């Protein structure tokens, strides 16, 4: 009944401005045509469709948007950006939202973030990724032991997954230092790395 009143209380104009500044996009030109949603390959697992996310950003519904699962499931395929009649880089808006949510420690789909961290950990250790390492770390983090176990026999038979990490000749320290500086700076700036 009093949706309108709630809405005005939830509106956060500073949030809209921040998303526009960080993504470099003018979200006010979105007129809800739905083209982005029509072509989105991840929409079937979204809790809010991408056009709804865009509307949420316009209206400054910060919690609604940053707590959404959708921003974690976005594939960064840029189909939405390509098909937006107003030339909004919608994928850049989605990425900005994910960055903002992460930095505030809002992680609606932890398993996705765990997967990314597992990947980046192998990069930190070896300077290059290494599939078995990423998988093992991910299984430990997510306590999901059976991920892709059905693929293992064939993947191994075909030697699809590298068993030994490929390390940068001369060492991976330079990459580890990049990661370290990134973490330290995030800490200094008071955001979650």
């Amino acid at each position: 009944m009093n949706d309108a009143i709630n809405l005005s209380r939830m509106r956060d104009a500073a949030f809209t401005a921040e998303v526009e500044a960080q993504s470099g996009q003018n979200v006010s030109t979105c007129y809800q045509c739905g083209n982005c949603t029509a072509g989105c390959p991840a929409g079937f697992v979204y809790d809010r469709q991408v056009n709804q996310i865009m509307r949420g950003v316009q209206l400054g519904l910060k919690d609604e948007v940053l707590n959404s699962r959708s921003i974690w499931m976005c594939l960064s395929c840029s189909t939405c950006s390509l098909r937006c009649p107003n030339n909004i880089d919608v994928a850049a808006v989605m990425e900005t939202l994910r960055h903002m949510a992460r930095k505030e420690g809002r992680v609606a789909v932890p398993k996705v973030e765990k997967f990314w961290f597992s990947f980046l950990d192998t990069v930190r250790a070896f300077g290059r990724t290494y599939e078995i390492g990423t998988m093992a770390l991910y299984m430990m983090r997510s306590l999901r032991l059976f991920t892709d176990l059905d693929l293992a026999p064939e993947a191994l038979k075909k030697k699809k997954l590298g068993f030994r990490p490929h390390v940068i000749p001369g060492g991976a320290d330079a990459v580890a230092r990049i990661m370290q500086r990134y973490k330290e700076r995030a800490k200094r700036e008071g955001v979650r790395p």
Partner: protein
Amino acid sequence: MKFAYYPGCSAKGSSADYEKSTQAVCAALGIHLEELPGWNCCGSTPAHAVDTELSAALCARNLDIAAREQAETVLTPCPSCLSNLRHAAKRMENPQFRARVDELLDTPAAAHFPEVTSVMQGIARVYDANAIAAQVKKSLKGVRLAAYYGCLMSRPPEVMDFGDPENPTLMESLLSACGAEMVDFPLKTACCGASFGIPERVMTARNSGRILELATQLGVDAVVVACPLCQMNLDLRQKQAAKEADAFFRMPVLYFTQMMGLAFGIAPEHLGLEKLRVSADELLRKIDGAQAGEGDR
């Protein structure tokens, strides 16, 4: 012709067959690939999903190595690497962004970076269709193929410079020059589900399933790809996709370099064909059969 070369991590692991066939085809064409010394992972999707500056720093280290090697052009086989490296180079044109990235590096990155482009475009730059056709020893005549580019190779267009972002045609021109019949493939730039196969399997199963279903309906002999992750999703995960689509697929998924290599008469074992989960034997017989038929005439 010499190019600097950024293989990407997949080349050293899951897509060793892409690497092998890229090397074989380039050698056959007299294109020399000089691997960047001490290159590191571009950070792939996880780095840019986490932070744009972190992703750019991982890429800038490689671009800096390329600049110090005085490379003119760097080729990479992987569209994801290409996308990350090109995005980073573009963003580094902004001085504030560059300063933030430099803070993460041991020493500030070179002021100018060499151009980075795909192996596919590198080949096409040196060899036009006629020159490719002149290399063909075993024509792909009678072979029907679908070119599948994936979502990253051509998008966003202002960064990737790969022709029409929803209808690139470079792979078709290279493979038609090898004699293949290229079908019109409307899902050629649809997304296959990326690396979500690990955290959310239905994402890759559903999206890859659509691509395999269309290819099967079109009756092609193989889907041809340029991306290591696309290849893995369509080939290694083909059964998962079939289950999700409630269908049966038996679709070989080859790299464009493997297809070109076959046309150049390079032996399958030098192209890593044994790595395919869905065997390409029938396709090989078809190519050999066409040769025999040709000889009879």
